[in-house]
């Protein structure tokens, strides 16, 4: 009996066996192209096709949307997404490309959308046929998200949208966008509303998608410009002026603190992708040479690698403790740390990897001599995306200080 299986309910145990069998027989072949490090860095149609095919087959097999009702395309199970996730990670499957759809749009639409909308949108979201993106940030609304200025003006049963969103990952592939915008300019928070918008259908007709280039040189992020885009009022989620509350549902799930489990990326690791965690850091240290010896023999590097190992273990055990109420002083205390911790650990691990590499840290992806294919400088730079996006680390610390410790609001 496996580690996790010990505590499964009979229903969960049965489902776990099913997942395991199915995954054993249906593990996808090696990808024909180099995969990016995460769904947010998907750059080419070849990458997307491969990953969409995988998501569709996993959905068809019942491994995605497990805990949602059947009416919206779900599996009607109870606390089973977690089981499927564990088994997908165990089987080292590729990640799911529709990550924003699954993790953020699905629970938001589910909790705040009208029934007809849910039934229409969620099945194709789960299957990965419709890729989703998120339109929150704007040039003037980054950390200060409530400052969004994209405006929807009422016009009969329709709304006419104008504005400018930035940092929209996957927008160049997305059918749908979850969109936070303003319907009232006189109130900051209460003037916000929340829509789902079919952006792909509107390309060239009120919607322009322009790629942004990251400091790594990768694309993936986009700007999305709305120029008199008309959308139907039925695409609104929840009441007018309740956009901020709806956005909180989205963000809560983004930070992994929502009730509905997000279908997880699998644990696939092949020569074409590199995970960048401390275990790989140890491997790197064995390969790199420092002062004529393996870097892994250097007491300082050993000490600092262990610091990262311990932080990663602490993060993992936090997740475990989050399920033990008797060991929690505040219900959200551990969960709300996830994003901050995960991003800062990733950043420090990558920075340390560059020190392990020494002179060869100068070599990038195109260099045949670059250790680990030049992935560590890439990972280090991308880590700033993590500490900046979806609430900078500074904003995360405000949230933790105010919501968990109860300290006075800074602003």
């Amino acid at each position: 009996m496996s580690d996790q299986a010990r505590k499964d309910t009979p229903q969960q145990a049965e489902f776990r066996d099913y997942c395991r069998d199915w995954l054993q027989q249906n593990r996808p072949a090696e990808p024909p192209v180099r995969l990016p490090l995460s769904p947010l860095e998907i750059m080419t149609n070849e990458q997307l096709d491969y990953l969409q095919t995988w998501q569709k087959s996993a959905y068809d097999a019942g491994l995605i949307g497990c805990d949602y009702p059947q009416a919206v395309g779900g599996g009607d199970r109870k606390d089973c997404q977690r089981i499927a996730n564990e088994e997908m990670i165990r089987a080292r499957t590729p990640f799911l490309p529709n990550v924003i759809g699954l993790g953020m749009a699905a629970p938001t639409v589910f909790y705040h959308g009208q029934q007809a909308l849910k039934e229409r949108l969620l099945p194709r979201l789960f299957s990965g046929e419709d890729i989703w993106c998120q339109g929150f940030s704007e040039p003037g609304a980054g950390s200060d998200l409530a400052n969004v200025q994209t405006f929807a003006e009422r016009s009969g049963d329709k709304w006419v949208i104008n504005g400018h969103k930035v940092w929209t990952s996957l927008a160049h592939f997305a059918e749908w966008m979850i969109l936070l915008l303003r319907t009232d300019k006189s109130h900051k928070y209460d003037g916000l509303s929340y829509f789902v918008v079919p952006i792909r259908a509107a390309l060239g007709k009120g919607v322009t998608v322009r790629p942004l280039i990251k400091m790594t040189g990768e694309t993936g992020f986009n700007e999305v410009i709305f120029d008199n885009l008309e959308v139907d009022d039925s695409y609104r989620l929840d009441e007018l002026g309740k956009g901020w509350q709806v956005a909180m549902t989205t963000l809560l799930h983004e930070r992994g603190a929502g009730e509905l489990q997000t279908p997880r990326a699998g644990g696939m690791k092949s020569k074409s992708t590199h995970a960048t965690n401390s275990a790989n850091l140890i491997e790197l240290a064995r390969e790199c040479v420092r002062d004529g010896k393996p870097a892994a023999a250097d007491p300082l590097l050993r000490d600092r690698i262990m610091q990262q190992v311990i932080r990663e273990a602490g993060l993992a055990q936090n997740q475990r403790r989050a399920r033990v109420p008797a060991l929690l002083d505040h219900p959200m205390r551990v969960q709300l740390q996830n994003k901050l911790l995960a991003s800062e650990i990733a950043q420090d691990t990558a920075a340390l990897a560059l020190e392990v590499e020494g002179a060869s840290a100068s070599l990038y992806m195109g260099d045949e001599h670059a250790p680990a294919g030049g992935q560590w400088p890439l990972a280090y730079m991308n880590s700033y995306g993590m500490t900046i996006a979806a609430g900078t680390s500074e904003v995360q610390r405000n949230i933790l200080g105010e919501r968990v410790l109860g300290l006075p609001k800074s602003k």
Partner: protein
Amino acid sequence: MAQSDNFGFGEEAALLKESARKFLDDNFPTDRLHALVAGDHTPERMSDCAWEQGLWQQMVDLGWTMLAVPEDAGGVGMPLVAVAGLVEELGRAAFPCPLMATLNSTYVLAACGDTGLPALEEIAAGSAATLAITNRDGSWNVADTDVHCRDGKLSGSAWYVQDARKVSCLLVSAHSPAGLSLYWVAADAPGVTILPDAIVDLTRDQAHISFEQVEATPVSDNALAALHQAMPAIWTTLAADMVGAAEWQLQTTVEYVSTRQQFDHPLGFFQAVKHPLVDVMIQIDQSKSLVYSAACAIEEEPARALQDAHMAKASASDTAAYASGRSVQCHGGIGFTWECFAHLYFKRQKHSQMLWGDAAWHRSRLAQLLIGEVA
């Protein structure tokens, strides 16, 4: 063996933790601690070993000292996670008592097999004990002791013995003709001289102990094996204490900065105060999760016990250091005074930080496990 989803921290453990917190809240608020231990403020003071023996006796009567004693030795045999929960509460109260010393002795005795039973039975019957296994250099290598045993008699000295004046029994490691061995000695046996150290920490005491031809009861001829087996629990228990103390530091500091006004705002309004306190919280949570994970692994997944315990103590040492610094700094001028309670925990944590190995020491051992020797 599989790891429990909830660290094996069940209802009984939760009840024990809750009742311990209530007992200490009711009976030993921090002002009582201050009144008890902070009478003499001079830097050159000798440690005076002030403690509440009445409260301690109640704890013994509640069975807290026999929690870790196996059932076949007359104890309760609670899982280590439950013990960690109790110790976390004692750390939060910084309660001066020999519980941790007694637990540590228990872990070692329990690792000695049948020959440890008589001593365990004494502990189950209410005796407190402490380990006397450290040498003059304060080495945390369990093979290092400055005590020798010849013809069944102990000579030499043991250093950095915790709470020696609060216990009735000593578990001593000594070099003997059979190798490193363990002995059980009454603290007041002839030839035993307990020499208190003048330490910074006001909530504990510490001593070095001289042995002159002391009659001792042999417990084990294979001290190395027993000590190696017990150390993960010892580190984890201490880390639990530190996590509890750090939580006290966090909560009292949060309270202070929520009320103390400067520049027309409570101090906690300012990010220069708020964010470091968030970092204290984050560190505590990491350490706490690692403590329960280690406590669970020691019983449920022995192959991970050693590495998880190194992680717990390394993490707790860093947490204790950081939480202590911020607790005094964020209290400002008040935090720098003797009358403020912050220094009691600051000093206890500094003591704990180095005890049984500091963070770097544990990380170097962890690296041996996870990376190994590299040429």
